[in-house]
């Protein structure tokens, strides 16, 4: 049944012709606006900011002072607090990155994801925007650790910090990719929190954040080496402690860092390469998950 649309179509429009938006939002414009919103929302949430700032300090002091005194000296006379500091930075980045994937779950729950997905824009751009937003938040939190490092009695130079920031940005991107990939598959905040805890905790303890990776039993060695976070922690520590590590004798009972594959010792760049590869994989999974949404 077709009925004419002319029925009652007398002059209903008073004002002039509406102006039309021109063209389609560019890839980078979409990335930027999605990124912007993530960052804006983060900096508006005081509670989240305060907890993100206090957590690492508490952990560093507790572990560094409490645990550090009971732990035998590490090769090369590296103090435990000095040793654990780069690990703490990695841990903060890990927690913030993965947790930022929750934003895609809340967006879905509150309906805002539909607003984003009905726009005629590239899903890949949406995904990269989301990941960059979460990664920025994680990077900021990691950077704060460096800012307060001198207050906690950690030796670190500006030069080292400048070298570390791009690496931490990359690590943040990789781990936020993991968070977004996880978040885009889940429907409720509760299940995201459960699952991310299940993912974060083993990844955290088996990554060399708290102890040197080359001094563990064989079964754990396997787990450490298949854990992608290991490859993020190692280069951060190698750069942060480059001076102290240089003083570790080659015939020490074990090396503090550098992942070994069947007797082959990976260089810092090779470890970063693993991070890059894992990041690319996570990005691909996250993009695919967002593409197939709805």
């Amino acid at each position, binding site marked *: *049944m*077709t*009925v*004419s*649309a*002319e*029925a*009652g*179509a007398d002059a*209903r*429009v*008073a*004002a002039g*012709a*509406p*102006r*039309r*938006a*021109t*063209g*389609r*939002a*560019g890839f980078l*414009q*979409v990335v*930027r*606006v999605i990124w912007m*919103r993530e960052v*804006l*929302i983060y900096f*508006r*949430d005081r509670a989240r900011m305060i907890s993100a700032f206090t957590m690492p300090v508490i952990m560093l002091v507790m572990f560094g002072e409490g645990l550090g005194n009971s732990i035998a000296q590490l090769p090369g006379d590296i103090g435990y607090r000095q040793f654990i500091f780069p690990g703490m930075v990695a841990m903060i980045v890990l927690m913030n990155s993965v947790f930022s994937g929750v934003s895609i779950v809340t*967006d879905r*729950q*509150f*309906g*805002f994801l*539909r*607003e*984003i997905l*009905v*726009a*005629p*824009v590239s899903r890949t751009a949406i995904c990269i925007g989301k990941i960059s937003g979460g990664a920025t938040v994680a990077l900021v939190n990691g950077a704060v650790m460096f800012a307060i490092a001198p207050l906690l009695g950690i030796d670190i130079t500006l030069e080292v910090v400048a070298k570390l920031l791009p690496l931490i940005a990359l690590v943040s991107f990789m781990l936020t990719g993991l968070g977004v990939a996880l978040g885009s598959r889940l429907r409720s905040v509760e299940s995201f929190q459960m699952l991310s805890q299940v993912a974060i905790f083993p990844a955290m303890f088996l990554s060399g954040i708290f102890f040197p990776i080359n001094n563990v039993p064989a079964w754990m060695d396997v787990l450490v080496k298949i854990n992608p976070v290991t490859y993020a922690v190692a280069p951060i520590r190698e750069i942060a402690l480059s001076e102290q590590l240089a003083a570790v004798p080659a015939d020490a009972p074990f090396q503090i860092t550098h992942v070994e594959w069947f007797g082959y010792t990976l260089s810092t760049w090779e470890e970063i390469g693993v991070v890059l590869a894992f990041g690319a994989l996570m990005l691909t999974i996250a993009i695919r998950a967002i593409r197939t949404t*709805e």
Partner: protein
Amino acid sequence: MPPAVRVSGLARRFGEITAVDGVSFDVGEAEIFGFLGPNGAGKTTTISMLCTLLRPTAGSAAIGGCDIVSDPAGVRREIGIVFQDSTVDERLTARENLVFHGELFGMARADIRPRADQLLERVGLADRAGDAVITFSGGMRRRLEVARGLMHWPSVLFLDEPTVGLDPQTRRSLWAYARSMRDTEGVTIFLTTHYMDEAEACDRVAVMDHGRIIALDTPARLKARLGGDVVSIVGPDNAALAREVRESFEIEPRLENEAVEFNVEHGGDFVPVLLARLDGEVRSVGIRAPTLEDVFVSLTGHQIREQAFSEEDKMRSMQRQGFRRMR
């Protein structure tokens, strides 16, 4: 001028169930077009297909000349959508929600801010532009969504059950805002509703039931089709009265609203004749002009089940008031 929306033979099946069973119609430019029908009639499914959120199983449709299957991106630029459930970001301010939308739709930077302020003014939210949406009432959120739907100058604005869960006064004001948008922007408004008063306010109404359009015309002409007035009589034994009306006047009465109802020309002249001829006791008599509800009943044989506030509506209403935050 081509129609704003052209639909032909559009159908959608979900497995065994046919949600939309081949509908065809055109919607003119700057028209307010309503889909009236009960829940489950296929209104939302049709709208979802037109908005390219769902692929049709058969038929075709075009909006502003863009085909919904072959050019979904083109369609999405042509349309604004206000969903049944709220999709604003309550942590952002009203203005930020609009700016975000403008950027996502590729508006020129110089246009975004003035356009946002203009629309906020039009929906009466100018003084709350900088407040986070979390502080807004349900009605304000809906108005903001209408403004956002219009942000990128769409040619068609889809409103899916826009006033479900809102109180009558808020519904009327939302409706007035929508109408003024049509008048000033020349946008076509396409809405679904199961509220009669909302359907009455449309230029044309398509009555939908079981996935089919069973009538499509202006509200006035739909009502005129019924012919004359609705007469309702109530007695101690309505069934007997109905039988008597059927036998002595050759009219098919309906047992509705705990009364015997039927349509006749010139109801005022007919009632004295009716009362003189009826043997059964009549306690009250009413005459009224037909409503769209009567049209719906006469077309489908059943009521639209317009509960003023169903359980589902109540939940929605609470959600819009920010109930979810309490969890």
